[in-house]
């Protein structure tokens, strides 16, 4: 990870790429990439990042399932001179970065990449390729030394399914006929126990 901005800290060099980064907790992996905000770009990056994350659909389960993302935390710190891109997700990091960027489109990521010193070699007319963007995320990242997830065995899809199951279960319990069936069939004992509260 580059903790200090250097003259050209992020010149594309595939040899410097470190694969399989990220600390897993069960099924859930993490990425935390730390960037430097270009002087004078603090307000713009704040606005663009919020717009980037507030687009309709971005907060839907469907898109999060498609990206495999549990959480996304984007933070400005050190008087808005530094930017943290943090995501917790289901898959290995390296294979899916092209998918994650590709889903939104590299031009959309450019909305806030353009305000970062690490992307200083690029411009609207000279966008980074997918390999170059992946490299920059990689060299800017620090792997966690501790990663604790409340439900490390659950993927986003698992959570969606369990949410669905819970809602369906509530409907059964709320239905007098459903409640009766739970009580009368010994095979449903595990569910009956859950219906108690």
């Amino acid at each position, binding site marked *: 990870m580059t903790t200090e901005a250097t003259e050209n800290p992020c010149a594309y060099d*595939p040899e410097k790429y470190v694969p399989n980064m990220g600390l897993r907790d069960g*099924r859930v992996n993490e990425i935390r990439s730390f960037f430097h905000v270009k002087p004078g770009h603090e307000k713009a990056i704040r606005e663009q990042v919020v717009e980037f994350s507030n*687009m*309709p*659909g*971005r907060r*839907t389960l*469907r*898109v999060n*399932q*498609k*990206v*495999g993302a549990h959480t996304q935390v984007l933070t400005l710190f050190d008087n808005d001179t530094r930017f943290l891109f943090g995501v917790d997700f*289901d*898959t*290995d990091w*390296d*294979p*899916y970065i*092209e*998918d994650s960027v*590709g*889903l*939104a*489109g*590299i*031009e*959309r990521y450019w909305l806030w990449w353009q305000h970062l010193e690490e992307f200083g070699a690029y411009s609207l007319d000279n966008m980074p*390729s*997918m*390999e170059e963007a992946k490299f920059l995320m990689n060299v800017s990242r620090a792997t966690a030394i501790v990663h604790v997830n409340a439900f490390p065995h659950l*993927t986003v*899809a*698992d959570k*969606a*399914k369990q949410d669905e199951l819970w809602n369906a279960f509530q409907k059964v319990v709320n239905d007098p006929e459903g409640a009766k069936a739970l009580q009368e069939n010994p095979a449903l004992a595990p569910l009956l126990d859950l219906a108690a509260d």
Partner: protein
Amino acid sequence: MDILLALLCHGEAIAGSWSGLDQAMGGPRALLHLASNRAIRADYGEGDVNVDTDARTLELEDIQNGALHPRPSPYFAVYILLRIDVPAAGRELLRRLQPRLASATHPTDPEKQAWVSVGLTFQGLKALGVPQASLASFPQAFREGMAARAESLGDVGRSAPEHWEAPLGSPDVHIAISAISPDADRLAALIDQARMAYTQVAGIEAIWRQDAYALEHERTSFGFKDSISHPAIEGSGIPGTNPKEAPYKAGEFLLGYPDETGSLPPMPQPDVLGRNGTFLVFRKLHTNVAEFREYIRAQGRDRADEELLAAKMVGRWPSGAPLVLAPERDDPELGADPKRNNDFLYKTEDPRGLKCPLGAHARRMNPRDADIIGIQRLHRIIRRSTSYGPMLPDGVMEDDGEDRGIIFVGAATHLERQFEFLKTQWVDDGVFIGAPDELDPLVGAADGEGQFTIPQRPIRRRLNNLPAFVVNRGGEYCFIPSLSALRWLSELDT
């Protein structure tokens, strides 16, 4: 604003797409987004299935025919691996092979249905004396070779390199010559010509050979018709087999052209070496047919149920009829009809896998427009696999000791993003379909502990304790140079 409201009223299909609001907002940013990501949005079913009239023209006259051409039907094939002992000999061999290599022009010409292809491994490029700067420009996966990446690829246990058939996986594998033809006579003629080239050059040794041929009804040793699905590639002149699928950017399969992300894939240098070439994945996969039959027999309630279970694992019936179009029983007429047997998608026709399970082999290999983690179009390969060895006779449940299986051949420009992703994320993992505990039931690296869910009403069915039915006996990554590159290589003076 009216457009925005209309889009939002269309619900999830648009709300789930980041591009929806951008389109609504219009403007140059949206147009830029549309232009570069048009193909990727095809993943959401918004793609343009018509051939892109702005498609960059491919330099077909420079591309080896085998790099693009689908496998003939039926087929006879031979794969020969050679070792270069003297660099000049390797170059001389390439010079002699050049007149025997057809280009990718006129793909429908009957003459083009049979061909010889030449590929080189990284060790082979070194043995030829390719300059170090050029060698360093090849992608890391190719430079390391398949054996060195075995663990990350899931080639462990019985599929680990220490069990591979010699010389596969060794640094002695330098040049790969393959020939394929719809008939045995033409194949023999092609191979005779190639053999003349390498037997007459001292300093070249043939170290391995594998014959392959279409089994009865063009089915694999498991008894299922294969190689039905082939993508359309912009500018190739070769149509795809699914009219509902938008053509792929040529850069997914050929170097020097934009790929699905809009970028040029990293290309070996100099330009003449990399351009119009591609990478080929080669794996000799032994199939445990008897074990497969035994497993199905043990799980099935009766013969019809056994056939259904096997089809659910594969994603198609033995005839090739897809489960999505024939969910309850085989339809040989459908299976044999190339105009219909691949004309389907998943999202609207079978979103929950009630016809074709989400984890079925064919659905994993090409999820089409199904809801998965990621973008399917970034991970497609051209498969050109063949069968080797005799069929285990019908009804035989015990292994007869014969070597039989599949010569897996796949072409792609991004070894990691395409083949290795397919193997590690879609075959040996199930997170992408919401089934983290499940592997590909047919070719996944299970080992007695595999699980496979068959969605069905009223209650889903689950198969347990799936063994591994496929063992990797060895493989390698090959670079398939253009015809210009082969000339350049043959004229090296290092």
